[in-house]
């Protein structure tokens, strides 16, 4: 296979690939990211293959399994080219109809299209669906266009052009200067200027130097790095190789979580293919530059995403942070200068080289340039990955793209920045999202998780959840983090269990401040953010738990009771039969009553009570009304209706 050795070779190869393709040949792209695989993308793929064979169309119709399209709420997604007809929530049963009607008959199947819930209008093209329409998909958009396991599909859309330009037309210094001028900031959490980081490693004494991709992505609720790595691994490798050239490194590492098996597989395939085509190895593209990459699978430790901890892990040691008197960019893996950037950061690099720093600077806000991918999840209609220019208002992301809150519930807050971030309340929904704004609001960008919460989310419970998560993940090396988190968890456990005391809030704040000042690594110094930001914006919820022993969102188990409203109960036996503890007493035509001493508050009765009856309710902060007297429990029916 072709070793590409020059710009001409690459252009030649590209036109050859494009020539082989018939632009009018119908082909089907099927989203095959992890989320779509979980909703049945594999069985849909098998059904497509099957049906094409049955119809004798395997030669006439192409099939391409792409990475994540981002609209996970409606997956599996298929797009039929060249018309670009987009079908959502496709099941294997839909496939024969799609092949016969749409592929053969050129007829659109209405029921599989996106329907606008407000206007009822059906939308044919992916790009016109509101979820996509308001996005700017510079980094993520190519996922739709390529097969991640086929390097040629990446080359076809201009892949490795930037690397060729760098190796043949630019000096390492010019590359560094371009990235510095672009003002690109790290997408993994801190937002440190990428160019400056590269420069430190470049100028640090010591050989060899290493460049590393951080695909540890431990933030619960964030999965954009995985989706890039699964859907477009060559883009990351190209960025990494460009960085290696600028810095003067010949060895790269990709640190990727073991929990992301598809990312590990696709990355492995991409590295093999890049070597074969001459984009990795000795004498890359005939330029004399030498560079190769090793994959290191992470073994599940949140703290290992921290730079010095990650480098320990690459050395095969326990992934615990080191004190950073000296930065890892100067002394990292095996004490050599090591430059670490996150997946999304690396994926931006080819774009900056291709289109120039000035172009990149025109997108975003004063101090945050370019776009950012967010994973919009939780209590929101359109769950998925969203890429918008820095500075887009939170409200636009959640309402215009995300489609608002399901079930007509009220918005309560949005959590950004993962376990190091905070929760932003409704009054700040119009704030532009960028690195500095989010920090000002007491949260942070983090890797881009955006978890939407509605009125049914208990803020104190969420704060406790993050502290509990970090308590498990704290490596225990430094005292403020190890002990501080444990004590905070004790206090919060007490508050959600109705044992909160006067002074708890102040004590939480005091512990938080010590952790902020005295912890060894960023895990500890930011660990208190979820607690501090919730105290700042939702202090009244803490007060309700502590003083009134009431959980306003009706979440905290110890503070709620389930109760059947006698006026509403139709004595249908549903809750009674489903109760795992036999805590509900009654019979047909006898109003059901929950025995509070037996109830374990699992909520099944609440769930199974038919919505139009709605007799089971939750009570918090006040006593459960006494059961109805025996004599009044018999229901007399009139015409089958209750009373």
């Amino acid at each position: 296979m072709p070793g590409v050795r020059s710009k001409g070779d690459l252009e030649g190869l590209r036109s050859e690939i494009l020539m082989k393709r018939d632009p009018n040949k119908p082909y089907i792209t099927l989203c095959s990211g992890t989320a779509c695989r979980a909703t049945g993308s594999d069985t849909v793929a098998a059904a497509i293959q099957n049906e094409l064979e049955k119809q004798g169309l395997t030669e006439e119709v192409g099939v391409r399994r792409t990475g994540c399209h981002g609209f996970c709420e409606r997956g599996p997604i298929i797009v039929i080219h060249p018309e670009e007809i987009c079908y959502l929530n496709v099941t294997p049963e839909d496939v024969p109809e799609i092949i016969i009607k749409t592929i053969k008959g050129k007829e659109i199947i209405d029921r599989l299209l996106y329907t606008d819930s407000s206007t009822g209008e059906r939308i044919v093209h992916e790009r016109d669906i509101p979820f996509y329409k308001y996005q700017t998909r510079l980094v993520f958009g190519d996922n739709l266009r390529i097969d991640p396991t086929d390097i040629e599909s990446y080359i076809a859309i201009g892949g490795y052009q930037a690397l060729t330009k760098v190796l043949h037309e630019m000096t390492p210094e010019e590359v560094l200067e371009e990235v510095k001028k672009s003002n690109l900031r790290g997408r993994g959490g801190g937002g440190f200027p990428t160019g400056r980081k590269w420069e430190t490693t470049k100028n640090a004494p010591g050989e060899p130097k290493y460049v590393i991709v951080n695909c540890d992505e431990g933030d619960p609720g964030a999965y954009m790095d995985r989706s890039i790595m699964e859907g477009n691994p060559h883009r990351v490798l190209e960025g990494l190789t460009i960085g290696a050239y600028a810095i003067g490194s010949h060895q790269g590492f990709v640190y990727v979580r073991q929990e992301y098996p598809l990312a590990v597989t696709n990355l492995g395939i991409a590295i093999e293919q890049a070597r074969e085509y001459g984009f990795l190895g000795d004498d890359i593209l005939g330029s004399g530059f030498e560079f190769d990459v090793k994959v290191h699978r992470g073994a599940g430790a949140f703290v290992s995403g921290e730079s010095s901890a990650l480098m320990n892990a690459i050395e095969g040691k326990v992934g615990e942070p080191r004190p950073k008197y000296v930065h890892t960019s100067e002394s990292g893996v095996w004490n050599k200068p090591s430059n670490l950037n996150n997946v999304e950061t690396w994926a931006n690099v080819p774009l900056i080289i291709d289109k120039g720093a000035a172009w990149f600077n025109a997108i975003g806000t004063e101090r945050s340039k370019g776009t950012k991918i967010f994973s919009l999840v939780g209590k929101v209609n359109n769950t998925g990955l969203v890429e918008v220019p820095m500075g887009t208002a939170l409200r636009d992301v959640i309402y215009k793209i995300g489609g608002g809150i399901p079930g007509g519930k009220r918005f309560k807050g949005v959590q950004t920045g993962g376990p190091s971030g905070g929760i932003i309340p409704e009054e700040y929904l119009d704030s532009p999202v960028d690195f500095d704004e989010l920090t000002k609001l007491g949260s942070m960008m983090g890797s881009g998780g955006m978890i939407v919460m509605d009125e049914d989310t208990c803020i104190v419970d969420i704060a406790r959840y993050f502290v509990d998560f970090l308590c498990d993940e704290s490596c225990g090396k430094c005292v403020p983090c190890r002990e501080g988190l444990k004590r905070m968890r004790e206090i919060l456990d007490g508050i959600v269990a109705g044992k909160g005391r006067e002074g708890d809030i102040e004590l939480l704040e005091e512990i938080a401040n010590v952790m902020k000042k005295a912890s060894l690594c960023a895990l500890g110094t930011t660990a208190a953010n979820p607690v501090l930001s919730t105290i700042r914006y939702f202090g009244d919820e803490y007060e309700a738990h502590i003083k009134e022993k009431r959980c306003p969102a009706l979440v905290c188990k110890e503070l709620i009771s389930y109760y059947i409203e006698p006026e509403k109960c139709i004595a249908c036996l549903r809750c009674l039969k489903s109760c795992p503890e036999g805590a509900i007493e009654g019979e047909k035509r006898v109003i059901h009553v929950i025995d509070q001493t037996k109830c374990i508050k699992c909520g099944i009765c609440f769930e199974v009570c038919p919505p139009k009856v709605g007799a089971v309710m939750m009570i918090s902060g006040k006593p459960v009304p006494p059961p109805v007297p025996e004599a009044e429990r018999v229901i007399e029916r009139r015409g089958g209706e209750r009373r």
Partner: protein
Amino acid sequence: MVEIDLNRVDEIIERYKGEEGVLIQLLLDIQSEFNWISREVIARISERMRIPKSQIYRIASFYKAMSLNPVGRHIIQVCLGTACQVRGAPKILDRTEENLKIKEGETTSDMRFSLRRVNCLGCCAMGPVVVVDGDYHGKITPAMVEEILEKYE
């Protein structure tokens, strides 16, 4: 209990012999093959790779992906990522624990199920999510737990 074939362990060790910093990768391979890492395996690695047992235990007990206890025939993962959390995942975990009469991290005495809590599987659109032996069950409610578990013998 799953018996571990030490010859197979030797084959895995062979892949990494002579390389630096490979202990984690080696243990991950063993974990994914046998679902746990036994005392005998640790002794074998120590002997073959000339790494002190204490160092291997330190790694194997630090990382979440590695287990020093044997696991049941079916592995249940209940996602408690933030998105699942706000959609009611704690109730799913409670229900599963009550149903199996074990806590997360434990295995039933008949070795039928091991229950694990995981922090985000990245399919937040389906939350709350329960994964049993790699099968994804999405939008779960407490009342559905029993029915799902019955499918796995």
